[in-house]
């Protein structure tokens, strides 16, 4: 019996408060555009901030107001964007989905290290000490700041280098913003070949720093029949609009830093 009294008392307080709040929500009801809610439901709800707004509901409000485009959300798939466009009464725009690629191949066994870091294991902190523990000034540090930042569980660190799972990645670009080394590039998902190196050091230097670095030897530039590859600042760059995805450069690259998409 004694247990019943507190339960009842608490229940009554809860009931009264509930009624007060229910009345208040009717009394202070604000007319919101019903489209806002519909759109918010179609957005992924991860609040990644890739659209540039504070979160998914803020993005939905901006879309309704016309401040943002219907395809403002980089994390939405085509069907949802088409549905949002339908709600807004605009023609859906075909948008190329993006994907994050980490331009580094300097795994633990291939990169040389300056020092052993015994402090807080985040990229940001390690990068603050001489630009990172890897000799190469451009390398992925592999402490996983991007893994923590990713709202879609797409990033992981394998053998000291971050990699994006292209099936899970939506290309929102949050990882690229948190990366202190700016080694992550957001590319169209259809781009077939990527140079997985970011180093602008000269070839001879590069060999001493990391055995998996682009040395700017221009073999890929000569191999590419489409003329899509240019070596600038000792680093091969692929023009995704010209690349045909033939894979000739992938085979010829002496350092094996050019990779086909997963």
């Amino acid at each position, binding site marked *: 019996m004694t247990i019943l009294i507190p339960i009842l008392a608490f229940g009554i307080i809860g009931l009264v*408060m509930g009624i007060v709040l229910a009345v208040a*929500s009717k009394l*202070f009801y604000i007319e919101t555009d019903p489209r806002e809610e519909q759109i918010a439901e179609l957005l992924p709800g991860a609040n990644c901030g890739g659209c540039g707004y504070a979160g998914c509901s803020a993005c939905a409000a901006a879309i309704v107001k016309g401040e943002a485009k219907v395809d403002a959300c980089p994390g939405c798939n085509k069907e949802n964007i088409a549905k949002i466009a339908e709600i807004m009464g605009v023609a859906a725009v075909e948008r190329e989905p993006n994907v994050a690629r980490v331009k580094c191949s300097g795994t633990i066994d291939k990169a040389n290290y300056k020092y052993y870091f015994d402090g807080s294991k985040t990229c940001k902190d390690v990068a603050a000490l001489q630009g990172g523990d890897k000799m190469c000034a451009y390398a992925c540090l592999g402490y996983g700041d991007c893994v923590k930042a990713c709202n879609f569980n797409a990033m992981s660190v394998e053998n000291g280098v971050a990699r994006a799972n292209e099936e899970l990645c939506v290309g929102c670009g949050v990882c690229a913003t948190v990366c202190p080394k700016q080694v992550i590039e957001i590319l169209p998902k259809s781009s077939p070949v990527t140079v997985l190196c970011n180093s602008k050091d000269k070839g001879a230097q590069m060999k001493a720093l990391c055995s998996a670095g682009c040395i700017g030897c221009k073999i890929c530039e000569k191999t590419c029949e489409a003329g899509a590859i240019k070596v600038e600042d000792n680093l091969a760059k692929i023009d995704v609009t010209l690349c045909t995805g033939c894979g000739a450069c992938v085979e010829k690259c002496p350092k094996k830093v050019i990779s086909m998409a997963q």
Partner: protein
Amino acid sequence: MNNYLMGLLTIILGGLFTQNFIFSRFMGICPFLGVSNKTSTAFGMGMAVTFVMTLAGTVTYLVYQYLLLPLSLTYLKTIVFIFIIASLVQFVEMALQKYIPSLYAALGIYLPLITTNCAVLGAVLLVVDTYAYQTLAEAIIFNFSAALGFTLAIVLMAGVRERMENAPIPEFLKGFPIVLISAALIAMSFSGLSF
């Protein structure tokens, strides 16, 4: 009668100055540091806290006196009070969103955080735990003046921070360090009032 009025005056002065919640009890520091960037938002926050605190003080006092005490359920006071405060904050949030949307947007996350503002819970628990506050009027006045003390503190702090914007602050003190140092200085000057 005169003694009674003097008692009320003591409560008011205590809440405002000598027993200031921020500077002498150190409660409610989170919104104090978080929303003290601009005087206008700080004042708005102070008013929101004042409203919640006074209302919460009244409701909790009544619930405690007429429900928890007679049923000897005083051990439930913390959870019941948190529950009441949470509902009231929800209520204030809805009202603000409707009538003062600009203040609602400016307060942002700090408004729902009043729920966990220990100044509010601290005040209502102090009222029922201290024998000095026996009547409803005393309880309401205590809560109201404590909340006004909070407002005074946060507005003072916002004024200081607004002036610091243009002050030549040494690089290593910029941001939170200088804010904490100035808060400590204000707290010290407030402690002078209790002698």
